[in-house]
C-alpha cells in the first residue's frame, strides 16, 4: 500500500495529488453520484411490470417525443446560429462588439422563469411579436422550441469562440494560395477544425434543454398529448406523492440522455480521427 502511494507520488509532477484526488472523488460522490443513485434507489422499489407500465403510458411517450424532439431541433438551430454569432464576434470589429459578446451569456444569468414569462408575453397571440404571425406560437411546440433555443444559445457560441480565436489564419491563406475558393476553404479547412467544438456545444445545449422546466412551463400550454413536456409529467407525479413513478421516468430520461451523449462523444472521436490527421 505504502509502496504504491510513493510510486504515484514520484510519477506525479504536481504535489498534492493524493489530497486533490481524494477531494475530487468525495466531491463527485456527494454531489453527483449519491443524488443519482437515489433516483435508481427509489425506482428499485417498483416491480418491473409497474416500472414498464409507468414509462410506456401513452401520455408519457408523447411527452418523450416532444421533449427530445424540441430539444434536438433547438440544439440544431443553436449549432448553426451559434457558429455564425461566434464567427462575427471573432472575425469582425464593430462598435458595440463587447456588449453583444456580453449579451450572449445573458440566458445563463436570467432566472428561467423570468425568461419563460417574457417569451410568453412576446409570443402570445396578442403579444408584440405573436400578433404578426398567422399561426400560434406560444402554447405550441414552436413556443417550446423557442424557449429551448433561448436557454441553449450560449453553449455553442462559447465552445466555438476560443477555437476560432486560436485558428491560424496562415492555413486559410495557404488554402487560398493553393487555389481554393472561399467556400472550399471554409468547408475543407475551417469547418473540420470547428466541428468538435460545435458537437460539444450541441451536446451541452441538448442536455440542458432536456431537463429544462422553468422557462418552458410558461410557454408550453401544458396540454396532455400535445404540449406536455416530460419534466412536467415528473412534476405531476410528485404532486400525487408518487415518488417512484416520478423517478422511474427520470431514470428513462437519464438513460436516454446518457446514450445520446455517448453517441455524440463517439461522433466527436470519429470527427477528430477523420479530420485531424
Amino acid at each position, binding site marked *: 500500500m505504502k509502496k504504491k502511494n510513493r510510486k504515484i507520488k514520484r510519477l506525479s509532477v504536481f504535489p*498534492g495529488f493524493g*489530497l486533490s484526488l481524494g477531494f475530487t472523488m468525495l466531491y463527485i460522490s456527494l454531489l453527483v453520484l449519491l443524488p443519482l443513485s437515489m433516483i435508481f434507489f427509489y425506482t428499485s422499489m417498483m416491480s418491473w411490470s409497474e416500472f414498464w407500465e*409507468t414509462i410506456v403510458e401513452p*401520455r408519457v411517450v408523447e411527452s418523450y417525443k416532444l421533449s427530445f424532439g424540441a430539444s434536438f431541433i433547438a440544439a440544431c438551430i443553436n449549432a448553426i446560429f451559434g457558429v455564425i454569432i461566434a464567427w462575427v464576434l471573432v472575425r469582425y470589429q464593430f462598435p458595440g462588439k463587447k456588449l453583444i459578446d456580453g449579451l450572449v451569456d445573458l440566458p445563463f444569468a436570467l432566472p428561467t422563469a423570468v425568461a419563460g414569462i417574457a417569451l410568453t408575453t412576446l409570443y402570445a397571440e396578442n403579444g408584440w411579436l405573436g400578433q404578426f404571425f398567422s399561426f400560434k406560437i406560444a402554447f405550441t411546440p414552436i413556443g417550446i422550441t423557442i424557449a429551448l433555443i433561448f436557454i441553449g444559445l450560449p453553449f455553442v457560441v462559447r465552445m466555438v469562440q476560443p477555437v476560432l480565436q486560436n485558428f491560424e489564419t496562415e492555413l486559410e491563406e495557404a488554402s487560398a494560395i493553393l487555389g481554393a475558393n472561399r467556400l472550399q476553404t471554409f468547408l475543407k479547412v475551417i469547418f473540420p477544425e470547428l466541428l468538435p467544438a460545435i458537437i460539444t456545444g450541441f451536446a451541452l445545449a441538448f442536455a440542458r434543454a432536456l431537463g429544462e422546466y422553468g422557462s418552458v*412551463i410558461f410557454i408550453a400550454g401544458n396540454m*396532455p398529448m400535445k404540449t406536455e413536456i416530460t419534466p*412536467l409529467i415528473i412534476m405531476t407525479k410528485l*404532486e400525487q406523492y408518487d415518488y417512484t413513478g416520478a423517478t422511474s421516468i427520470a431514470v428513462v430520461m437519464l438513460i436516454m440522455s446518457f446514450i445520446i451523449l455517448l453517441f455524440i462523444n463517439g461522433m466527436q472521436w470519429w470527427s477528430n480521427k477523420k479530420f485531424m490527421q
Partner: protein
Amino acid sequence: MKVTLTKFFSVAVSVIVILTGCNTKETNQDVTAGDKKKLEILNVSYDPTRELYEEFNQEFIKYWEKETGQKVAIQQSHGGSGKQARSVIDGLEADVVTLALAGDIDEIANTRDLLQKDWQSRLEHNSTPYTSTIVFLVRKGNPKNIQDWDDLTKENVSVITPNPKTSGGARWNYLAAWAYAKEKYHNDETKIKEFVSKIYKNVEVLDSGARGATTTFVERGLGDVLIAWENEAFLSINELGKEEFEIVVPTISILAEPPVAVVDKIAKKKGTAEVAEAYLKFLYSDTGQEIAAKNYYRPRDENILKKYTDQFPEIKLVTIDEDFGGWKKAQEKHFNDGGTFDDIYLPQK
C-alpha cells in the same frame, strides 16, 4: 503551492468549525429561551393566502401579547399546496399548516405521522375556518353570454383553467363542473364524463398553477372565461380594474374547504404547541373571520357572512365529503394516473 493548500484547508476547517459551533449555540439558546422570550412559529400555507395571513398575523401578534405577555414572531411560507405538503414531509419544520386541500394534510399525517390521522375533527367546521368556492371570471359585458356550466361546453367558447394534475385549485374546478353535471344527468357517469370532457376540449392552455391561469386570462388576453377561486377572481378585479372583468356565479358550485392543522410533533418539539393551537383558533374569532371576509374568503360565522352578502351571493354548494366521499376517494377516482381526468385526454381505445 503546498503551503497555500494546507493554509486553505486549515482556514476552511476552522470556518466550518466556527459556523457549526455558532449554530449549535444558537439552537441551544432557542430551546432554553423558547417558552419565555423568543416564540416563533412557522405557518406553511399555499399561494393565494399570502395577503390574508399577512394581515391576520399582525392581529394575532397583538392578541397574543395582550393575553399572555409573550411576543411571538410568525414566519410565512407560500407555494403550491402539494409542494408545500411535500416540504413538510421532507423535513420543513412547520408548526401549523394551512393548505388548499385536506388530502395534502392527510398525506403528511399518513407518511410521516407528524399529526394524528383524525386531525380534521379537532377544530370546528372540518378544521376549515374559512371557505371559498369556484366561480367564473369573464370579460366585461360578458360577450359570450356565459351564465352557467352549460355555456362552457359550447363550441365557440374558450376556457382557461389550470391543470388538475399539478394544481390543487384546478382540482376544485374540475370537481365543481363534475358536481353540476352530476345533478344535471342524475348520476349517469358516462354522460357526466362527456360533459366535463367537452369543457376540457375547450381549454386552450392548462397552466401548472392557479396564478398562472389567472395571468394567462388577464394579461395574455386568452380565453373567454376563467374558472377560478372566488377570492382569486375578486383579487384580479380589484387589481386590474372593474372596467375589464366581471364575475359570473354558476347555479351550482363546490364548497372549497382549505383546512388548517397544528403539526403536533414539530410544535411539541419546538415548545410551540400552545401558541400554534391558539393561532388557529384565533382564525375562528370575530377578528379572524372579519379578516378572512375582507380577503374574499367566505367566513364560517353566519353573522359576519351576512354583513358581506353583496360580496358573497348565495350559490348551491356541494361538499367534497357528501358528493365525492372525501378527498382520498376523489383524488383516486379523478386525478391519479388512470383516473377520469386522464380518460379525457388519452386517445380513445
